């Protein structure tokens, strides 16, 4: 699995310079959604809750950084930490209030949170220009001689962000904090009685998830050169959920595979746009019924059969 990842990373670095601009764009879009899916994967797989307000974290980082640049003359790089701090702080606040709830109750409250954020963005027209959106959003300024104003340059920025997010989350779930989170997901009551502060670990999980969502959010404005509230509706969050479930819940690679399945493939095979929601729904039903481990579960199953060594079970800690 690890060798496969390294090989894939090398390909993702080496091949794009030889690709058509449209395909580089498509690859950037896929990786960007990969970042969003990764952030949802942490909530779904390691806290064990569904967050229908995840797109709001993306929106807050996107709008905060873009507004700092457009209205106050910040550079992309100086706006980024401010926007990220804002989104993580907000996630902590939201988490402290909502993570006392579980299951459908948590999902409903986060749905409300997502809609409130979207409505504020839509209606605070003096600041956000409402539904007309913010534009034009320039590519990030060059940094250490690296330029991001070409499709390829920006692609590498997205790729680097994905790698950083992935590395951060990989470390998190191997660290004590991550294992405490997994314990809380497995059995909240027991986790409490072995001495784990339950709420604290759920909130930390949500903050990390918001950080990753925010990292992606920083990039979405420059990527599309435009920010509008419609990009961050409920369906954006639902798409992330579908990606995680299709790819495989409780893993880090799963959400990325899901993003490839749901962004790259339909576009590359030029499916009709209108069919996408239907396809998403259909895929979700098929996967939940026939492949509860997601695509990655299927891959692992295949690998175990080949090597007939490991266990077929979905591992949480490897």
């Amino acid at each position, binding site marked *: 699995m690890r060798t496969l990842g390294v090989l894939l990373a090398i390909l993702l670095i080496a091949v794009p310079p030889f690709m058509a601009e449209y395909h580089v764009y498509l690859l950037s879009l896929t990786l960007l959604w990969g970042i969003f899916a990764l952030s949802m994967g942490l909530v779904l797989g390691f806290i064990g809750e569904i967050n229908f307000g995840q797109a709001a974290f993306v929106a807050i980082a996107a709008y905060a950084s873009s507004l700092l640049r457009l209205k106050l003359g910040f550079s992309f790089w100086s706006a980024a930490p401010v926007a990220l701090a804002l989104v993580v702080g907000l996630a902590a606040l939201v988490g402290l209030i909502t993570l006392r709830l579980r299951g459908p109750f948590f999902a409903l409250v986060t749905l409300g949170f997502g809609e409130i954020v979207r409505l504020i963005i839509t209606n605070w027209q003096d600041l956000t220009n409402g539904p007309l959106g913010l534009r034009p959003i320039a590519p990030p300024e060059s940094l250490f001689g690296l330029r991001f104003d070409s499709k390829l340059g920006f692609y590498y920025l997205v790729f680097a962000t994905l790698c950083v997010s992935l590395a951060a989350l990989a470390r998190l779930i191997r660290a004590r904090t991550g294992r405490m989170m997994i314990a809380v997901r497995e059995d909240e009551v027991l986790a409490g009685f072995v001495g*784990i502060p339950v709420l604290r670990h759920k909130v930390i999980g949500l903050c990390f998830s918001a950080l990753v969502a925010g990292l992606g959010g920083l990039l979405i404005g420059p990527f599309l050169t435009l920010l509008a509230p419609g990009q961050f509706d409920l369906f954006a969050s639902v798409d992330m959920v579908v990606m995680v479930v299709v790819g495989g819940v409780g893993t880090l690679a799963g959400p990325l595979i899901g993003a490839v399945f749901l962004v790259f493939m339909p576009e590359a095979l030029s499916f009709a746009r209108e069919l996408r929601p239907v396809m998403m729904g259909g895929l979700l039903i098929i996967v939940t019924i026939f492949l509860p481990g997601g695509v990655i579960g299927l891959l692992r199953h295949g690998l175990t059969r080949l090597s007939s060594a490991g266990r077929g079970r979905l591992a949480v800690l490897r």
Partner: protein
Amino acid sequence: MSAPLLTVENLSRHFGGVRAVNDVSFAVEAGAITGLIGPNGAGKTTTFNLISGLLPPTSGTVRLDGGMLTGLRPDRVAAQGVARTFQGIRIFPALTVAQNLRTAVLAGMRLGFWEDLLNLPAAQRAEAAATRAVTVLLCDIGLEDRADDIANSLSYAHQSLLGIGLALAVRPRLLLLDEPFAGMNPSETQQAARMVTRIRDSGITVVLVEHDMPAVMGVCDHIVVLDQGSKIADGTPAEIRSDRRVIEAYLGTDDDA
């Protein structure tokens, strides 16, 4: 008689009109095994849940070594040195036996958030210490050769042992065992009873709720009997065996016949 480790005072818990636990007081001596027994619906498990903080009491207090336990969050109760197991067993099902124990061991370690996240030397020391602690615990509960099995795949008796292992990982002063011998055959019960005695001999005070009368009489130093939410007797196994009210509670009075 030394000062009691655990003091339960006028503890009550009402569910609507039902007085599940009604004005129960008793003391648990340090270094002993105390049994909490009674017929079905006597309020044993509710009492346990009140002591461990899973349920808030309607009134009354629970003190550990003079410090108040009532009203503390579960992880704070654990930090005070109180661990518990659960009726029907609670473990972390998808983790291996070793990972289960490691989780509980790590939970109790002092380690800064960033030290842990950045894997600084302090974190590496903690992990190494955890590895040693897990080895000892595996040996204590006799599951050495099951270390890498997924907890969910263990037999009921083994899961029950793992549940006790998780509680021991907290390094408790007071261990609350909720029906530790449930679902075990006689030889497994004997083995588990010997383990409970060993736990006491290692200096941990034990309180257990149990239905298996011979096991309770054999293993406990002191017994508290509940019936319909109230305490009806409190004494050594020999005293309890000959107590008229206890016999009535279990077998019914002549009037019932």
